[in-house]
């Protein structure tokens, strides 16, 4: 089949759905696992919806928890797609161009997770329309949360529309028209940085919370995102390489590896700078850091987490930095997973919870997520994985078909 008999949007959608959903037993098991997690999450959410956020482990002191932690982390993963978009489209890097679509797919999945986490965290999810400009009241430009909503939704649109257009063209066996999508690519590069900076400003802009009110927060967010995001993309690529007949060039892995090492090292440097500031000259404002790293007033629930995170961070960075020239996929997988989970803990839990402890009135409490909260979080994560899978499979199929067509024609 060299030419595609189907044309038009309906054929495009139905073919994509077919490519997305058809697969072997292994794939079916994978889907079934995702669906059961999503189902469990939906069930847990229905409980939370009934009883209110009392079903979570949050309190008036630690008033944001697992949801907002994950939200913060996945904004970073979404932003990291820019590390592929920039070299692929602007520097015309041929290797990265081949996988840029995967980066974009991961970004869309991550953004959908972010929006779901925000919704799960809201006390009145049915009142979201109060935030929609026009019918609600949008406190822009005063509230950073409104900025965040704009940049997140804008970035989602950009990352959905550009690849959709390119794939749609390729599906019809024609190259995309440059001027039609390039401006959006430029925009999305600028936008990727902004989603992460604005999310950092959400915390950075609160003098009430000395732990967050720190100008290094934004840059550190970016550095850790540009390490963790490509690590996620690398995991997806390894999965593709292992499970499909799609060829992923080893050069791509080395390039990703280089990006990760640079960002991870910058991230660690900033982390040490922060630790120095907090502990060399200990002030009242360092109590949160003390709670995080060593515990405070007998409360130390975060201590094991943060040290695990730091060890994983360092381990992942070292593994990437000193990777042997002939690495195996398994080696990269271990490196990517340790870096990814290290940053996930550090930037999720490790960033959000200590912002609330001690409270502005000096009180120290521990926060432990409830099972409802954990189930909802797992459900959202499964949804994200599902979305990414559903986006990437048709994208790869179209890509393959288009290449075949080009070969027969050219």
């Amino acid at each position: 089949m060299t030419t595609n008999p189907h044309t038009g949007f309906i054929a495009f959608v139905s073919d994509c759905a077919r490519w997305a959903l058809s697969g072997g037993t292994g794939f079916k098991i994978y889907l079934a696992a995702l669906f059961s997690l999503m189902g469990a999450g939906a069930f847990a959410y229905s409980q939370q919806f009934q009883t209110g956020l009392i079903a979570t482990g949050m309190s008036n002191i630690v008033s944001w928890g697992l949801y907002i932690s994950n939200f913060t982390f996945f904004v970073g993963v979404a932003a990291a797609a820019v590390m592929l978009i920039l070299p692929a489209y602007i520097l015309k890097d041929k290797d990265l161009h081949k996988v840029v679509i995967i980066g974009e797919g991961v970004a869309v999945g991550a953004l959908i997770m972010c929006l779901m986490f925000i919704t799960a965290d809201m006390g009145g999810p049915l009142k979201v329309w109060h935030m929609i400009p026009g019918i609600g009241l949008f406190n822009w430009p005063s509230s950073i949360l409104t900025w965040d909503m704009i940049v997140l939704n804008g970035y989602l649109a950009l990352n959905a529309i550009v690849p959709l257009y390119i794939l749609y063209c390729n599906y019809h066996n024609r190259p995309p028209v440059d001027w039609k999508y390039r401006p959006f690519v430029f925009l999305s590069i600028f936008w990727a940085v902004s989603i992460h900076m604005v999310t950092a400003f959400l915390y950075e802009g609160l003098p009430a919370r000395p732990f967050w009110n720190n100008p290094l927060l934004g840059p550190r967010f970016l550095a850790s995102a540009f390490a963790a995001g490509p690590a996620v993309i690398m995991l997806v690529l390894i999965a593709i390489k292992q499970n499909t007949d799609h060829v992923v060039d080893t050069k791509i892995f080395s390039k990703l590896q280089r990006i990760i090492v640079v960002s991870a090292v910058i991230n660690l440097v900033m982390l040490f700078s922060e630790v120095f500031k907090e502990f060399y000259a200990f002030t009242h404002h360092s109590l949160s850091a003390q709670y995080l790293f060593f515990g405070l007033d007998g409360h130390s629930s975060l201590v094991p987490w943060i040290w695990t995170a730091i060890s994983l961070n360092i381990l992942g960075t070292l593994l990437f930095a000193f990777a042997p020239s002939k690495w195996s996929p398994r080696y990269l997988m271990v490196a990517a997973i340790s870096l990814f989970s290290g940053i996930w803990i550090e930037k999720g839990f490790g960033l959000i919870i200590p912002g609330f402890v001690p409270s502005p009135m000096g009180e120290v409490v521990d926060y432990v997520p409830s099972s409802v909260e954990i189930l909802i979080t797992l459900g959202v994560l499964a949804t994200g994985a599902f979305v990414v899978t559903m986006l990437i499979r048709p994208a790869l199929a179209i890509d393959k078909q288009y290449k075949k067509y080009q070969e027969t024609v050219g």
Partner: protein
Amino acid sequence: MTVREKKEGPMKTEDILDTKSTRRDFMKSLSITAAAGSAGLVTGGCVGKGSTEEMGLKWEEYFKKNYRLMTQQEKDDTVTRLERLAKIQHDLDIQVSDQEPREQVLFGYAFNISRCKGYMDCVEACVQENNLDRNSKTQYIRIFELNPGQLDPTSGDGKYHHEVPVEDKFYMGVQCFHCENAPCIKACPTKATWREPDGIVVVDYDWCIGCRYCMAACPYWGRRFNWGQPEVPKEEINLKQHYLGNRLRMKGVMEKCTFCIQRTRQGKLPACADACPTGSRVFGNLLDPNSEIRFVLKNKKVFRFKEELGTDPKFWYFMD
């Protein structure tokens, strides 16, 4: 679920007959039922056997505007709906006020550290007056017990459970300080919280989406969130309510001290100042040169908590 238990509204027979009598009315009742169905969905509870009227009211309540955008007519309408709903749902005869701020009034508060003995009568009065959730033991006011040599509640004990006064201790009360430059207001994405012309920082409970960004932004821990459905025993409910004040809250919304807006706008003292047996609490109009609060500000050495944050609270501490 003592208070909020859903009860079937008193459906009048004539109403039912009436709605069934003509085709047009029948259609009308159909559309109301449809609306009611969705209202049941949007109001988020198991609706069960709520009456059509209740559903219709809830539907209208769901689509109402932010309080600040309402015309006087719309304010009066929502107040009427709320009163009717309380009657239908809980058989309560509440009076919800939408009284506006008075001209030339700016409220201020001063707290006498040397007099307070930590009896916490203010806390109790506040809980009663403002219909605070008994389940989670919500308090707007907190009293911190401090050792000599400290003047900062963050190093004090906010959970003491012993007989007071205690020798060699002193007490400091905190609550929302009604900041003039309030970080909580700036943070809110939906403008569900704002500062009224008389200086009271309020929350529109029906407009709040429960994101808790204001809570993270408040440097004084002045805000309380309804994690679950708040409950007040029916016989203890204060029926004299204000839309922006002590009316019964729902789960998932933010609340806070309102300087007892339902009392102070009528010229009364807040419940806490009224209840204090030691006279440590001074409340009044900052724009009135003869008020007691102005006397305190003029003649005592006063200070404010976390002044360096530039929030400009309308709450001062002083000593005799």
